[in-house]
């Protein structure tokens, strides 16, 4: 059983504040006091098992309705109402030169308040604490719509529906400190106050949202506690960026499964030639199959106190799982001051290759080397990753085939020359050579 070494609770300086000041109740919040009697827009998706295969019926909203009209339109509305801290489209962004395609953004408005973190960062599972900031304290104007499974076979949108007690209290809210246009938070069962932990139903909901959006550029992400989640109230993030992330371009190698079972139809691969080691889940006979395999893997990591991040990409067809160890290294003082000065906490977006930089100097001098160095610190070592992978496979009842018959894909002939992280966690100079 692997556990993280106990360290004193670190007062994290780098905490984002996802909302305005907490409100006293009676002001239309999302708690049990206000929500059940409120009316909010509601998008209910088709209750079918395999939404990836289906197409819109004639009297249903068209395929781009969810993303373009609803989500982005509502987001634009909140922008015009001044609900965001700053205009994210005024933040300069570009692609860092080099073969990987890291995306950098200069976002000075996201300057973090120096406020002590409200929970310890050495435990992945921590109980929900209503005294601390959570999403029930958010005002309803920050909610774009509720999102849930409909009872019938048609997707439907209602501009105003009573929230009630059922599952329609999954809300999609704006992130007032966005890192891209359309940055939202998906909060499953907001008034039930779930802690930041993956469970099968919530993960399926997140996956469902990716499918409904129907665009490979609309991705969802999840950070566990200890992997730079900042609020211990279950939420996924999502935003739209019309470019491939470096991690999506990385080559993968299928992990062959021993002869026998793979009922779910899910393929698991490992990432190759990418600074952070991770697993890629694809396929699945149904969306639920894919979702369950991933959520079981996440729960295994949670139970073993291994922090991790998850990226849902390609409209729900590819899911990346990254176990990480940066917070521990940071707490143990093993990360170079230079990296720390850039104040970038490698959460899911950074790991995927989208770097939000807070100082102009960092943005102008951003190089691929910097990104690779930062991410190399995040990754588990080869040995530890194999260990963790074995735990996961055990939990999802798969046995890796001993005979490695598959040749790694030689498509792009990328050579990753960084050595495995040394046991003393020295800063590793990695370099990526692309042909």
């Amino acid at each position: 059983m692997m556990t993280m070494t106990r360290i004193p609770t670190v007062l994290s300086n780098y905490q984002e504040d996802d909302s305005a000041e907490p409100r006293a109740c009676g002001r239309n919040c999302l708690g049990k006091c206000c929500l059940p009697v409120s009316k909010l827009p509601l998008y209910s998706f088709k209750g079918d098992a395999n939404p990836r295969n289906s197409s819109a019926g004639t009297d249903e909203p068209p395929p781009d309705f969810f993303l373009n009209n609803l989500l982005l339109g509502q987001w634009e509305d909140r922008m015009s109402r001044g609900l965001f801290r700053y205009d994210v489209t005024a933040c300069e962004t570009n692609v860092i030169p080099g073969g990987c395609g890291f995306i950098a953004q200069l976002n000075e408005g996201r300057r973090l308040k120096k406020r002590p973190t409200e929970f310890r960062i050495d435990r992945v599972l921590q109980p929900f604490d209503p005294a601390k900031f959570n999403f029930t304290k958010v005002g309803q104007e920050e909610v774009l719509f509720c999102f849930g499974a409909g009872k019938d076979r048609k997707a439907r949108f209602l501009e105003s529906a009573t929230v009630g007690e059922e599952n329609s209290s999954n809300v999609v809210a704006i992130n007032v400190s966005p890192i891209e246009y359309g940055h939202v938070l998906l909060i499953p069962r907001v008034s039930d106050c779930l802690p930041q932990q993956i469970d099968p139903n919530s993960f399926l909901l997140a996956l469902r949202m990716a499918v409904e959006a129907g665009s490979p550029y609309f991705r969802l992400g999840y950070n566990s506690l200890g992997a730079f989640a900042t609020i211990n109230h279950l939420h996924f993030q999502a935003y739209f960026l019309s470019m491939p992330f470096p991690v999506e371009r990385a080559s993968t190698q299928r992990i062959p499964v021993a002869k026998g079972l793979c009922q779910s139809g899910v393929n698991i691969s490992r990432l190759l030639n990418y600074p952070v080691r991770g697993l890629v889940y694809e396929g699945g006979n149904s969306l639920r199959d894919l979702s369950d395999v991933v959520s079981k893997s996440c729960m295994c990591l949670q139970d073993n106190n291994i922090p991790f991040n998850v990226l849902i990409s390609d409209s729900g067809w590819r899911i990346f799982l990254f176990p990480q160890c940066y917070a521990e290294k940071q707490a143990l003082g093993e990360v170079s001051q230079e990296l720390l000065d850039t104040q970038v906490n490698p959460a899911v977006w950074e790991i995927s290759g989208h770097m939000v930089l807070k100082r102009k100097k960092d943005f102008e001098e951003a190089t691929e080397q910097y990104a690779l160095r930062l991410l190399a610190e995040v990754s588990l070592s080869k040995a530890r990753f194999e260990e963790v992978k074995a735990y996961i496979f055990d939990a999802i009842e798969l046995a890796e085939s001993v005979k490695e018959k598959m040749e790694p894909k030689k498509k792009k002939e990328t050579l990753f020359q960084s050595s495995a992280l040394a046991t003393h966690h020295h800063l590793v100079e990695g370099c990526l050579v692309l042909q």
Partner: protein
Amino acid sequence: MLAVLTAPAIGRRADSTSLSPLTSLTELMDPSLRLPVEQSLAARYSEWVAEALDEIQGCFLITDPGIAGHPIVFASRGFLAMSGYSLEEVLGRNGRIFQGAATDRRSVMEIREAIREERTLQISLLNYRKDGTPHWILFHLFPVFGVEDGRVAHFVAVQVPIPRRSRCLRSSAENRHEGGTGRFLVACRNEFRSDYKLGCNPVVELFVDVDNRGKLCLLFLAIFGSSCFLFLESINNKFVSWQCYQNYGSSSTLFHLLLVGLEAEESRHATEQEKEKACDAANSILSTLAHYSKLTGRVISDKRRSEAGISAINSSLVISLGRIKQSFVLTDIQLPQMPIVYASDEFLNLTGAQLSLSIRTPASFLCTISSNLILALPACVLLNSPHLSYSRHEVLGRECWFLNGPDTDADVLHQIRQSIQAEHSCTVRLLNYRKDRSSFWNLFHISPVRNASGKIAFYVSVQMDENAKSNEHGLSPHMRQLGVVGAVKVAVRSLSMCAGPSRR
């Protein structure tokens, strides 16, 4: 009686509607696209190019990124033969209809990115024919640039089949006896299953074809025993099981076939010969197109001229904007007269003539045509709809106020101008005029749009006829307008990202 069943080819939902190869047949081309699609090649390469292209051997498609949905505008005979589709089934559709469940997602992404970056790509790809059977091809994509404006005029996709070179399971007899390459296990189970009844036939033989990732394509030629119910379960990477239900009078027996340990075919590589074949075909097509483009004067080349074409609107932005199915225009505010640089099809329809027929050519003279007379127009003026709306070429480059007219409220116009000055969005209601001078109340919303540098590059204005249907799918007109703004903002921001710090 023979039953021929294939495993349902599972379609996927890409960034817009994408149906499985089998079901996609039910959806034909969007009628409003018919004319642009049919005219796409002729407008640039003259009427004779189609014949010349027909003479080129090989399988290839030509697509037009300037038309909404980036549709196919030409398919070679070889392609239609290889894929099993007819020309009508393919014209006007997007190339992703040939992809399916087992098509590698990363490859799909690479194609998407090559289109976006307007460059050549050669990649092995698993495609699906009309009958749902998958097959490997070497996919060679290249752009063709207009020399004058530097924009991509068309994309050409050459396909060279990559034949199977690995083993596949053929004889079921062989398999039933666990011989050869087959690793079948046949087990009997007494189980009653009454769901999933399919049409049954006296005799069926199982023919198994393995494609990428072990997804199986089953062709039943004969069945064994008497009436039999068949259904498929758990088709996945490594094994498949069929529940083959046989009814022997009153009792029932279930044959459970297990195919264990199949080697999944993840990729297939093309030989040098096949790659050369692709390049040769590409060159023939390119030189044909180049030759015929000289006839219309709209010359093309395989290279973009360096100075031209770093225009405000590159083809990937055009493709993205083309997905937004509402009336809007983009104006470039960096030029003094604030010209329109993009207009959606719906804008052209909204502002189109309702009654009289009048055409304005670029030389700006009016002429009336009756239904019997057809006036030959220069190739650059395309008629978009039977109602004779503005053509795209009539709108692009015009200053954005051209919809206004004598009774348009000057105060409202002032309000709009002020908002632009203040870099704010605004929503107004103003009287606008169509091409035939009829007026309508326009619910007008305008908003600044920034590009990746963070500076304002365009203004997007969204038009809505007040009399048009109000609440579509529960969304108010204003919300729908905001949806357009959001989609445009995202497209412009993402697609203007380039390497290195911004220079502006």
